[in-house]
Every structure is written in C-alpha cells, then in structure tokens.
C-alpha cells in the first residue's frame, strides 16, 4: 500500500470497497483525479457512482481500500477532508421549508461567517445564481432548475478546493442544464476541481476533461472522451428500413460490408451497427441500395452511453435499483 499521497492529485483512491449486506455496491474502485479539472464518472443507475461519491465526501466509511482527498487521508483525517470539499447530492439537499436566502445564511453561519458577512455572502450568491427574485420564497415553491442552482450555491458558500456533483442535471430541462454546465465551467475556471457523476455520455463529453466509466462497482474504462469513444468505434449507423421483411437480408449485407456486429433494435424495422471507420458507412448504404433495400431513414451518430457499455462490458447499461440511495 502506498503511504504518501501524490500532491498533483485531487483524489487518489485505490481499491475502494463498500458492501451493503450482500450487495457489493462499490467493489474495488481506483480513481486518480488530477487537480483543476472536471472529472466525469459515468455509469448507469446502480453502478456505484453515488456510493463512491458518498465515500469520498466522508459520508460513508469505506469497507476497504485507501484514498486521499486533496492530500488528506480519507479515513484518518476526516475533518481536514470536510474542510476543503463540498458535496451536492443527487436530491437537492436544501431545506424546502426555508427560503433560499435562509438556506444560504444558515450554511454561511455554519462555515464560520459572522451574522453580517453571512447575509452579504448569501446576497452575492443569490445574485450570481439568478435567484435574487426568489430569495424570500420557500424552496418548496422553486422549480427543479432553481432548486439545483440553490443547491450548488449552497455548496460553494466557501469556495471548495474540490466539489462533488452527483448527477447535477438529471431531471432538468435543457435550459437549466445549460445553466448548470455554465456554473461547472466557471467553477473550474476559478480553480476548483469538479468531480461529477452522470448517466449521459454527452454531458461527460461536454464537460469532463477525463472520464471514468463505472459498472457493477468497478472502473471498467478511463480516459478522455475521445479515447473512450475511440475504444467503442467512431460512431454508430442507425438504419430504418421501408420494408421490415427485408431486415435479415439487410443485416447480412451490413455485416459483410462493415465487418462489424449488427444489432436489431426494439423497432422491428431498425438496425444499428457500430463503426470502426465512419467512411465505411457510405459503402454500406450503397450496398443496400444495390440490393434493392430501400431506407426510410438513416443516421450516423456519436456512440451513446449504451453503446459504450455494450462495447466495454458486453451488456447494455440497464437500469437497476439505485443501491446507494437506499442507505
């Protein structure tokens, strides 16, 4: 076991384990998160993302493994870790009965601000997060996006060195999601390291400098967005046939031309093939047209999370019960 943390890293975790009864929620997670970047943890529900974050933010004690957070030992130096990290949980962890302003003042007081400074800091944050108009309303009247912004504001009353954002955009409309993305970018620009979990490859791709893919409590792939996609192939060809009866024939042609596995989708007239080389897509379309198979629709898309999972694990990113949340 290593005895000294690497000071270049915001998080250094080796073999983290957390079991709940017989469920291995986290089963040996290794993470090396460099300082000053957005690090994405990607995975389906129940993969162990939330449990990992709860351990790294000191809410859960690991059953095994070792980790340093901002250079502090996660288990032996809990106080120091708490002093420099901040957590925004998956469910907005703000008090619904209080107003937005009261929530922030409370946290500022708890973080050592004087009465007066608490009020000033709250006003500043409410202004910055576009919540000034709603400051005196109870949080229960807020929309999902407002609640999420308040939640993040609450996490940066004292600007942390490292912030955990657990699925910060799940359930948000596109406009609110963009606002959260802007906040994340501003945080990193200000020097904070961000670790965010997400179920969306697109989000990880947009925001994260590096991504770890988690499944069944283990990191199964790690790298930049580009590296991950390259490991999956550069994209997927989706086809929709005019005549579903020709599906088998089309599948045969595609397999031959693309030299890649072809998957039938839920819709009986559609097929999906992963491509190592996108230029082959035109060959495939030409071959189909020669065989007289007419297409209603086709698209060449970025690989989705499902495809990444299929490629990495051989099984789709199924939705399981959220193990971490039940605790």
């Amino acid at each position, binding site marked *: 076991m290593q005895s000294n943390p690497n000071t270049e890293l915001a998080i250094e975790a080796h073999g983290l384990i957390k079991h709940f009864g017989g469920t291995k929620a986290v089963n040996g997670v290794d993470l090396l998160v460099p300082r000053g970047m957005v690090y994405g943890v990607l995975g389906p529900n129940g993969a162990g993302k939330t449990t990992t974050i709860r351990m790294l933010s*000191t809410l859960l004690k690991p059953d095994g493994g070792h980790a340093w957070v901002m250079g502090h030992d996660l288990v032996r130096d809990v106080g120091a870790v708490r002093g420099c990290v901040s957590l925004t949980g998956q469910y907005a*962890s703000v*008090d619904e*009965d209080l107003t937005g302003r*009261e929530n922030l003042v*409370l946290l500022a007081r708890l973080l050592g601000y004087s009465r007066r400074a608490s009020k000033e800091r709250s006003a500043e944050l409410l202004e*910055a997060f576009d919540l000034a108009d709603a400051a005196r309303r109870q949080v229960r009247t807020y929309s999902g996006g407002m609640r999420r912004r308040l939640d993040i504001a609450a996490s940066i009353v004292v*600007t942390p060195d490292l912030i955990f954002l657990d699925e910060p955009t799940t359930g948000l409309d596109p*406009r609110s999601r963009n606002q959260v993305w*802007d906040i994340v970018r501003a945080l990193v620009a200000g020097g904070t390291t961000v670790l965010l979990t997400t179920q969306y490859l697109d989000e990880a791709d947009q925001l994260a400098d590096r991504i770890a893919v988690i499944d069944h409590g283990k990191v199964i792939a790690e790298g930049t967005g580009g590296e991950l996609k390259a490991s999956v192939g550069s994209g997927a060809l989706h086809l929709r046939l005019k005549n579903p009866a020709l599906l088998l024939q089309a599948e045969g042609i595609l397999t031959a031309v693309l030299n890649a596995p072809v998957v039938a989708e839920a819709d009986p007239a559609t097929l999906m093939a992963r491509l190592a080389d996108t230029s082959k897509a035109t060959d495939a379309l030409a071959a189909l047209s020669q065989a007289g198979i007419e297409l209603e629709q086709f698209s060449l898309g970025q690989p989705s999370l499902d495809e990444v999972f299929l490629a990495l694990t051989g099984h789709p990113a199924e939705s399981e019960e959220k193990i971490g949340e039940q605790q």
Partner: protein
Amino acid sequence: MNVSPDRPSRFASNEALNRALSTRLRPGQASAWTASLAFAWRGVLKIKHIPEQLIDVTMTPILFTLMFTYLFGGALAGSPTEYLQFLLPGILVMTVLFSTVYSGVTINTDVTKGVSDRFRSLPVWSSAPLVGSVLADSVRYLMAALVGLSFGMLLGFRPEGGVIGVVAGLSLLLVFAFSLSWVFTTMGLWMKTPNAVMNLGFMAMFPLTFMSNVFVEPETMPGWLEWWVNVNPVSSLATAMRAFMHGTFNLGQVITVLLASAAFTGVFAPLTLYLYRNKV
C-alpha cells in the same frame, strides 16, 4: 449586462457568477455552540414557515379541554370551573408531549430528503444539527404550553401558585419533554418515512397520556389500569404540575419526573447520536 447576439447570457450577469466563485474566503470554523445555535435558528424558522405543526398539536388539547370541562366537569368535580383547575395542568402535559413526536418527524425528513447529508459533510461538530433541533423544539413546546395556558385562563383557570408556580411547572414539563424528544429522534432515525414516525409516535403517546391521571384520578379504575396509571411517569408529571400551579410542592413526584427524564435522556440521546453518525 452584456448580452452578445450569438450566445445570450443565461444569467443576470456572468460577472456576478465569477465574482461569487472567485471569493476564496475561509472565515474559519464555527464553534460547536455557534453551529448548534445556527441549527436552532433553523428550527425556529421552521415554526414560522410551517405553523400547521403548532396548530395541530394545540387544537386537539383545546378541544379536549372544552369537551371535558363542560361535558364531564360538573359530574366529575362538582362544577366545570372546579374541574378545570384539576384538568388544565394535565392538558398542558398532553399538549407538549404530543408535540415531541415532531422532533422525530423533523429528523426523519432531514434524512430522507438528503438535507442531513450536507450537514454531515460540513466541518462542524457532528452533533450540532441534533442539539440545535432539540433546542428549537423546546421553543415550540413552550409556545404550545403558553397557548394552552392562555386558553385555560380564558375559561377560568386560576393558578394559585402564581407566576412562580406556573414557571416552575412549565420548567419541569420542558425538562421532561426534552428527554422524551430523544426517544422520538431515535425512532426518527430508525424508521423509513416521516409519516411512519408520526403514526407510531402518536400511537405510543395515547397510552402514555390517556392512561394517566390527566383526566381523572385512578381510584375507580380496574386494578391493572390503576397500577399502570400510578407507575406512568406522565401521571407523576401531571401531579407535580398541579402541585406547582396550585402553590404546593410535591417533592416525591418531582424527583420521579427528574429520574425518568434522566433515564430517557441517558439512554436515547446517546442512541440518537450514535445512529446519526453511523447509520444514515
């Protein structure tokens, strides 16, 4: 505000965002006392924002007071006003004890909604949220008791013990309520939903309050019930309260109440703190 045509600013001002984020001020740690007071302030704000809880626990005793005083008062004590002198201290006990259930409901709500996650990840004394919430609850108990007392006096309750007797009686009541609320915070951390805590809590309060000497003295009850009423600490509390409010002092019962309070606190406060730190 600078709104460029190609990319509309999504915020009132991105500068405000950057300014707020660039503050790297670390004011230093809040002391255990400051943190507990901050949490107590939160609890008091909740009384302000959800007055329903207070109304909930005060309406029932008001109805009971009216009903028992005017329906049974004459038959039980000769006249409604005379019965009220006996009944009201007990009704105050009932009011406040019922509101202790909400201590458990509040803590369960914090845990199930994820609010306690944030509190627990802060660099403050880890028991501060609990201590603060129990402090705020004491404010709520006092308010409930004062509403009940004022209503009683409106109907003709006249405490012969004067201000001193009333203050002494209420103090003893608050001590007992404080100790009992730890039972419900334990329950709150044990159970899955706030509603379950409320239902079970109220269910437990019925035998504690009704099967006591709050309404009538137990002499005419069947033996087993009389036994229970006499050992029930709520009876001791009601008796001690009556004595204080009517200008006497029942040392035996006061000691019984204090011992029961110490026992509840001694067992359930550490249990609550343990569960809060380890289970959730």
